[in-house]
């Protein structure tokens, strides 16, 4: 991607600049974060400030712009941009607790990812020392039902319906939800800070753990970010192989979504177990290609690590044709079944405006009718050559999201088989990766933002390099962070207890993706 256009603003002019940009079409706030420039840094020598960064995207013209607000280190304060983009809510909370930026006018600035009783030390600052952290374990965790902690219904972590270590604290009236407060941050593994301590090659390992079910797009976008800064090209065969690997991972992730996640919400055991059994076929393919079933470490900056093995084409043909024959079965069992259809239709309806405002992306956005897929927007190699079609629905509810994912599965199978047919010949090392990107490479000073379409939505990595072999700042824009905010947004409008697990499942929220 080309250079990102930067617009500088001051805390006073921030909201007006934001409003102006939104009117010009930049309606999608990708993330809000910060960069800490210490005096000894090599990116801008001598700078000593914290920059608040707002990354924007224009869905209409597909442009990216970045607003930077330079702030003094001892007292960084910015006004909230929630009146402009509602999705900034959680991003600002995260920037507040990880960088210490005070957000004026924010309705609820409590800790999101860190523990409630964390003292005033800010982990993502460069001068952070772990010894200075003290946690007050008796700090109150929930603001609901003050004074009556027993009334709060914890629909989080230990609850089997919460789809993992995330969830909500609820105030219930029978089955009706009066108020909801999100509890996330249980899987916060500080991937962004770890990214600054490993070099560009070792970061493959780091970035892949961004999401368990969907690690391949993470390393793909990381590799592309590094290649942009290095200014190198990837060999043709490697581009095809990357596409095959990413689409296989997408298939496996959507099968988990359909089976245990969405199927398990209804305790619909046949679909859950059959989907996991069919997923084994996809994992066999991934194991043959990369050596791993869940963690792959396959894509590296410069290309890929290995070529396809000997009988891969036959195996892929057999397994993927079998999977193709199973998709109508799942469609009959899940989406045309009256009970499931009744439960999914009308649930968590989002309008296109709401979805873009919140920052929801991926199948959530495409189910509302917005035909945007980062694979086309970011011109990721080979997709358009193979005639990639975007799958959309118009209803915007959980059923539409499910149908979009089913359509994406069919599209992925077609893409993989077409890519295998058109794979360029050649099996020397030069066809697999570009030798300029060695494991111990140093990347020149630069800044880039690379995006891709992970299984859950728009995944981006904002990478700032400082000329050494470790990055200066790796900000990961996880799609599930904004999608989970969409769940909170829907719950606050009034919902029912029996709808929550289905809602979280239909947004396909991955806790690892959300907390990083």
């Amino acid at each position, binding site marked *: 991607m080309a250079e990102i256009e930067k617009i500088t603003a001051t805390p006073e002019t921030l909201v007006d600049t934001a409003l102006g940009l939104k009117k010009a079409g930049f309606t999608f706030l990708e993330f809000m974060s910060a960069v800490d420039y210490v005096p000894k840094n090599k990116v801008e020598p001598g700078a000593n400030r914290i920059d608040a960064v707002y990354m924007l995207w224009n869905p209409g013209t597909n442009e990216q712009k970045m607003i930077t607000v330079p702030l003094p280190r001892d007292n960084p304060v910015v006004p909230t941009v929630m009146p402009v983009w509602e999705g900034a809510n959680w991003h600002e909370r995260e920037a507040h607790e990880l960088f210490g930026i005070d957000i004026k006018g924010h309705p609820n600035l409590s800790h999101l990812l860190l523990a409630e009783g964390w003292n005033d030390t800010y982990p993502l600052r460069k001068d952070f020392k772990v010894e200075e952290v003290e946690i007050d374990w008796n700090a109150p965790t929930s603001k609901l039902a003050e004074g009556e902690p027993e009334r709060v219904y914890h629909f989080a972590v230990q609850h089997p319906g919460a789809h993992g270590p995330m969830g909500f604290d609820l105030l219930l009236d029978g089955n009706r939800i009066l108020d909801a407060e999100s509890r996330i941050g249980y899987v916060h593994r500080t991937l962004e800070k770890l990214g600054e301590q490993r070099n560009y*090659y070792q970061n493959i*390992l780091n970035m892949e753990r961004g999401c368990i079910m969907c690690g391949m797009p993470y390393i793909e976008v990381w590799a592309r970010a590094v290649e942009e800064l290095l200014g190198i090209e990837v060999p043709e065969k490697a581009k095809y192989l990357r596409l095959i690997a990413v689409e296989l991972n997408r298939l496996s992730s959507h099968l988990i979504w359909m089976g245990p996640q969405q199927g398990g919400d209804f305790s619909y055991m*046949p679909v859950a177990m059959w989907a996991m059994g069919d997923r084994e076929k996809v994992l066999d393919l991934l*194991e043959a290609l990369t050596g791993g079933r869940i*963690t792959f470490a396959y894509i590296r900056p410069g290309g890929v690590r290995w070529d396809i093995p000997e009988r891969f084409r036959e195996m892929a043909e057999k397994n993927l044709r079998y999977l193709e024959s199973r998709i109508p079965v799942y469609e009959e069992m899940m989406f045309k*079944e009256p009970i499931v259809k009744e439960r999914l239709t009308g649930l968590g309806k989002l309008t296109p405006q709401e979805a873009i405002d919140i920052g929801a992306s991926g199948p959530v956005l495409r189910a509302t009718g917005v035909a945007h897929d980062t694979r086309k927007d970011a011109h990721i190699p080979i997709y358009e050559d193979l005639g990639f079609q975007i799958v959309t629905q118009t209803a915007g509810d959980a059923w539409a999201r499910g149908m979009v994912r089913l359509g994406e599965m069919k599209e992925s199978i077609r893409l993989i088989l077409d890519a295998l047919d058109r794979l360029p010949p050649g099996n020397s090392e030069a066809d697999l990766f570009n030798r300029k990107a060695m494991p111990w490479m140093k990347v020149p000073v630069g800044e880039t933002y690379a995006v891709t379409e992970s299984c859950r939505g728009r995944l981006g990595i904002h990478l700032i390099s400082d000329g050494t072999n470790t990055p200066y700042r790796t900000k990961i824009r996880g799609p599930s962070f904004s999608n989970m905010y969409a769940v909170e947004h829907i719950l606050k409008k009034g919902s029912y207890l029996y709808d929550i697990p289905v809602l979280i499942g239909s947004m396909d929220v991955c806790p690892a993706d959300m907390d990083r």
Partner: protein
Amino acid sequence: MGLIKPLLYTLRELFRKPVTVKYPYEKRDISPRVRNIHTLNRETCQHCGICARMCPNNVLKMKDGYPTADYSRCSFCGICLDACPTGSIQMIHTQEHNIVRAHSEDLYMELLNPDGTVYNPEVASIGQDETNEGGVF
């Protein structure tokens, strides 16, 4: 009716063989690319130490010029394989392996020989199942 079709599918499934592999009574083939445990070719190793430096988790530590591994930290990514200039360090695909390290404070242990045998049986034992040939992969 939409309610009947799923019941017909489940009825059909009753008469099919389950997909479960009855491990450990039945085993399935694994791909030759699976990275399970290191081997070191001590003749071609040039003692440069790049593998230890490139490891993201500090698994390898150079001792007497050769890398030793602490398997409690390894994530089996294979970056050490990419980093090695001579290709002396490899990873083999074992069906199962168990690592026993008794009576030692130091968790770093010698790597296997390229043929899968243990380098120094007095210090550590690595038991492994036979690797499979051919089959699906």
